[in-house]
């Protein structure tokens, strides 16, 4: 043991005093000094036990951190990656589904526009007081029936577009879980910095400063882009 309190030389003054008292034959003082000496030894022991306990506690904490990190690296991260891939697949599928539906709907709308325009034109061409002939009446009936059917099919398409957005709920949940994991990793890293003697606050401040400067470099919209380009002579 190399702790200061347990060095034998620390005991020398007390031992010398004790020896002197023994030689002088002062029993009462001898016993009192002997008690002091014993408590000195006890104090040193307690300090050593305290130090060992602290070390053990730190090792255990480190060990927990290590196993937590190992778990993150081997299980949580690959899992997060897989689930993020799933989010990409989900959003991609939904976007394609939505675009399919929109592309299907466009010709229906165009047809609706064309047919209505033709019939409307024919009605406009009638002179004041002139009655529509049988053919125009029949065509108008057809147009109305067809518009009704097409509107119904569009309503179905719109409701399918709506349903195609259901990925948001699921992908939102996955992303929220991963944000939680990232936060956990962040806390673990901050802890490690603290244990290894670094200043977590300083690291945090540096990270914040970096983030702020990156954000300030990021332009907000197309107008900002246009401003930069025009300042370059575009």
């Amino acid at each position, binding site marked *: 043991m190399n702790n200061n309190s347990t060095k034998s030389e620390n005991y020398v003054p007390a031992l010398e005093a004790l020896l002197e008292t023994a030689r002088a034959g002062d029993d009462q003082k001898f016993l009192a000094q002997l008690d002091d000496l014993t408590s000195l030894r006890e104090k040193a022991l307690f300090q050593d036990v305290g130090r060992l306990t602290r070390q053990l506690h730190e090792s255990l904490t480190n060990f927990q951190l290590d196993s937590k990190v190992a778990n993150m690296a081997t299980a949580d991260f690959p899992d997060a990656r897989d689930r993020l891939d799933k989010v990409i697949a989900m959003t991609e599928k939904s976007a394609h589904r939505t*675009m399919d539906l929109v592309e299907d709907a466009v010709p229906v709308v165009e047809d609706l526009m064309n047919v209505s325009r033709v019939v409307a034109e024919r009605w406009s061409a009638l002179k004041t007081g002139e009655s529509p002939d049988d053919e125009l009446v029949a065509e108008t009936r057809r147009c109305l029936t067809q518009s009704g059917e097409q509107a119904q099919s569009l309503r179905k398409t719109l409701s399918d577009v709506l349903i195609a957005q259901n990925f948001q709920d699921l992908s939102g949940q996955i992303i929220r879980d991963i944000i939680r994991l990232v936060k956990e990793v962040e806390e673990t890293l901050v802890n490690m910095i603290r244990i290894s003697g670094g200043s977590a606050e300083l690291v945090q401040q540096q990270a914040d400063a970096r983030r702020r400067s990156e954000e300030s*470099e*990021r332009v907000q919209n197309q107008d*900002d*882009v246009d401003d930069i*380009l025009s300042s*370059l002579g*575009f």
Partner: protein
Amino acid sequence: MQILVVDDFSTMRRIVKNVLRELGFSNLKEAEDGAPALQMLKTTKIDFVVTDWNMPGMTGLELLKAIRADEKLKTIPVLMVTAEAKREQIIEAAQAGVNGYVVKPFTAQTLKVKMEKVFERINASK
């Protein structure tokens, strides 16, 4: 007019192609990365390139630089359509010879205006 749309996300290619079709361009090609795009440019007659920046293989900026460095391709207009919106990146693209820069998310109107501007400038310099 044959336009090449380059983006690693199929959804974005589809959106851009739809907007271009709406603007009256029907002759559209697509590539999912800078490298196959460059290959296609060398073998197919392409009149205009609309490219994303951030792609896993060859980035849009690298593609732009490769186009400008190629004697046969260097006059092809390149419009960057990207989520990369850092000041220095916009400057970098401009210095590399980009003809227009549109940040995502964009509207059909923005894309239309930017493309018309590119054509205007090309016609004015002819």
